[in-house]
């Protein structure tokens, strides 16, 4: 016998075999029992939940030689003919291929002939959402009042694309997604019949991945069976899916928690190098954080997380290191990334960007990111040590010192007392802070001693580095600029100390800098005027 795909081989043959749709099969069975058969049904629901199969069973139930019966025999000539699509009275129309008005007209013309051998003429119109607008409208009258021997079954995955007028003429049945355990049980049954072995974890992984669609699950199972050399294990499933194993996920999340960006990037590189599907990885990661969230808030998460007991315990351990809002922020960011990765031609770039955001909250300008920064600040204030966490350095600026006296003012002095290699860091940091307040220093200088203005403008002094406690200021342009500033070193030091809130010695050094262009005197006045109107930032001087 030639091989056929599992999902075709295991198509349900009676209502009882349709998995997870008891609410529908019971209703249909009762309607046959009580002889209350409607003339138009609409089956909707996502792929692989049993719409077409149920429609065929219903057709058999109506036309079976024993029937109409809720339990078609599957033995009689008519049942078999329906299974093979050979019974003239059960007409399966693929609306996606025959979508025009002409096909519907043909249907209307033939509908007036009574069934040739069965009791009912059953029209199964599959993928009905693909009919054209005209075709739908042509169908309306027939659908409302067909001859008494006709039953319409419309099946679709997208009921929202049907016109209201069609919807209101049908009895609607919504097929639900299947639960993971439904799918696992069915797969177990199939494997047992075929005499194949598989471990529970493997089946759980397949079921999780199929998102409640039986056909997806069976396709995947089929594939795994072909792939496996002997027994079906979880590793084989993961390999086929191109997903990573749990250990890797736990490890990766640990790196995110430790805000270890280089480690995260190295792991992404490893994935890309081994050719893993990054979109799938983002999905796995998202799911992991969802599980962390559940483990964090729920006392008894066993029913909510379909993983083994050990994994749940590990999740619970890991979740202790996360604050709930941190988890939410990660989920938020990753959901967005998932969208980007899905469409990107270079999926790793959006992923890498997301990791920068996750490990460096100060660059994340989403609400969640800002909340995390505020939380961190609050923690700082509460502990009242006046020490900032190092990675938060950009979030507090010296200008705002009076709002945060305890954290800010004491900082430079404290830094100076510290020793060792930290010194270098501190120096760089104070240099950065100095650079931020530098425009203020320059403005003050110009104010205090207008005669220095010209030299400042042409020399454009900038803080360059620290030598011991001495701040080296680089001056560009002519030697004269430097000399003039050196003569006023006392004033410069005073101004810096005042603006900066701390004692500093200054020294000057001549550096190469593109000297500002020379401008004629009368032009100078003009330019001053322009600047006073538009402000310095907006004016650019050109020859």
């Amino acid at each position, binding site marked *: 016998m030639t091989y056929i795909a599992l999902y075709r081989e295991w198509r349900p043959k009676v209502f009882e075999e349709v998995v997870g749709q008891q609410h529908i099969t019971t209703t249909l069975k009762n309607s046959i029992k009580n002889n209350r058969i409607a003339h138009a049904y609409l089956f909707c629901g996502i792929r692989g939940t049993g719409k077409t199969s149920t429609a065929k069973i219903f057709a058999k139930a109506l036309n079976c030689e024993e029937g109409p019966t809720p339990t078609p025999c599957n033995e009689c000539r008519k049942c078999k003919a329906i299974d093979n699509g050979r019974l003239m009275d059960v007409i399966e129309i693929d609306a996606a*291929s025959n979508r025009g008005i002409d096909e519907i007209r043909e249907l209307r013309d033939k509908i007036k002939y009574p069934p040739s051998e069965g009791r009912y003429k059953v029209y199964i119109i599959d993928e009905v959402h693909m009919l054209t607008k005209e075709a739908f409208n042509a169908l309306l009258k027939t659908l409302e009042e067909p001859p008494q021997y006709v039953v319409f079954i419309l099946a679709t995955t997208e009921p929202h694309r049907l016109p209201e007028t069609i919807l209101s003429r049908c009895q609607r049945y919504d097929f639900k997604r299947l639960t993971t355990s439904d799918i696992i049980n069915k797969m177990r049954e199939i494997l047992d019949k075929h005499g194949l072995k598989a471990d529970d974890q493997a089946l759980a992984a397949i079921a999780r991945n199929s998102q409640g669609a039986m056909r997806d699950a069976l396709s995947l199972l089929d594939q795994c069976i072909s792939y496996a050399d002997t027994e079906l294990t979880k590793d084989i499933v993961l390999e086929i899916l191109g997903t990573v194993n749990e250990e890797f996920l736990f490890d990766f999340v640990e790196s995110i928690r430790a805000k270890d960006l*280089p480690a995260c990037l190295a792991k992404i590189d490893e994935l890309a190098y081994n050719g893993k599907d990054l979109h799938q990885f983002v999905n796995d990661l998202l799911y992991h954080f969802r599980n962390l969230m559940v483990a964090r808030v729920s006392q008894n998460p066993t029913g909510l997380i379909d993983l083994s007991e050990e994994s749940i315990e590990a999740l619970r351990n890991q979740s202790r290191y996360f604050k709930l809002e941190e988890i939410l922020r990660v989920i938020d960011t990753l959901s967005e990334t998932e969208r980007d990765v899905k469409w990107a031609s270079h999926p790793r770039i959006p992923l890498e960007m997301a990791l920068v955001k996750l490990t460096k909250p100060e660059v994340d300008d989403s609400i969640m990111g800002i909340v995390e920064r505020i939380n961190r600040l609050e923690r700082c204030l509460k502990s009242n040590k006046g020490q900032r966490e190092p990675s938060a350095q950009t979030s507090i600026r010296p200008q705002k010192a009076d709002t945060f006296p305890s954290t800010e003012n004491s900082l430079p002095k404290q830094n100076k007392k510290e020793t060792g290699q930290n010194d270098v860091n501190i120096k760089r940091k104070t240099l950065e802070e100095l650079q931020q307040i530098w425009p203020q220093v320059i403005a003050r200088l110009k104010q205090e001693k207008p005669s220095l203005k010209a030299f400042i403008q042409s020399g454009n002094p900038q803080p360059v580095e620290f030598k011991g406690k001495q701040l080296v200021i680089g001056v560009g342009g002519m030697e004269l600029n430097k000399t003039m500033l050196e003569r006023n070193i006392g004033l410069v030091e005073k101004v810096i100390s005042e603006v900066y809130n701390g004692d500093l010695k200054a020294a000057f050094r001549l550096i190469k800098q593109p000297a500002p262009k020379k401008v004629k005197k009368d032009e100078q006045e003009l330019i001053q005027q322009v600047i006073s109107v538009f402000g310095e*930032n907006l004016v650019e001087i050109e020859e």
Partner: protein
Amino acid sequence: MGFDEIVGQSRAKKFLINSLKKNRVGHAYLFVGPEGTGKMLTARTFAMGLNCSANTAVKPCDRCLSCKRIQKGIYPDIKIIEPQGSSIRIEQIRELQREAVTRPYEGRKKVFIIDQGDKMTVEAGNCLLKTFEEPPEYVVIIILTINENMILPTLLSRAQIVTFDPLPLGEIEKYLYDRLKGSDDHIKLYAAFSEGSIGRALQIAESDEFTELREEIIKLIQKVSSCSMKDVFKISEALQKKDMDMNNLLDFFLYWYRDVLITKTDSSFAGIVNYDKKQELFDESRILDYYSLLTILKTIQDTQKALQAQANKALTLDVMLMEIKGVYENVHGSRGKI
């Protein structure tokens, strides 16, 4: 042209070979993977395996008449469906359905290979559904695509999905080395820019302009940081003059700033694409902070999206460059970190 000659893809190969061996060949396959990873080659080889007339245990034998004719593309029972113009239309699928009704002329299986399946119109995809689910027993349909999310979910669930991985860089380097007889110093660079696709790597390696173009674009990128706002338009013009797909061109931008981002994190990192420009990348990473880098990257991505949606090329580029320039000005303006 047996399975051995396909570079990498051990997983896909093992799966298909096992299916042939165990006589578990399905009726519907979906091959998913980036361009140039060997999807079409594998599909043809698989078709050879299905129709090989030799009596060997391992198929295809690569020697019999059927195999040879399949290689030459003159076998009557293998049909390749490609986009006509920009899409695969419903008429083409109807044609396939008509042909599927007749038995194979000489082989065991009639194989339909739908190349660039993502180019199927929604109507065409829906039209295929029924045939894809239950074709006659002698029909095998293989859809090739670069992105499974662009295929109808109802088609996906009917197929056995075989993923083709981007090739490991090492494999590509080795392949290029053999192919070019090691005569090129830029092999590492080609591999890095190939995004794991042999096809793309070859294309890059064989066009002389690539290295030149890259140098040129990088110079332009560096100019953005130092020029004045109005010179930005000159850069934009220079970019537009390049006779090349804008999105590919912007990839240079994307990878440049991505490399800066990585360098900022860890300058010794091996995954840097522009690995020969480490010093430049390092300098750049001292000017830009993380936030600015993320902003720039987002801008480039948005621009690529806009260009894909047929936005005005000149305007979109102008806006992008101005935004990038704006980021630099902000950094300089606030005397940002060095």
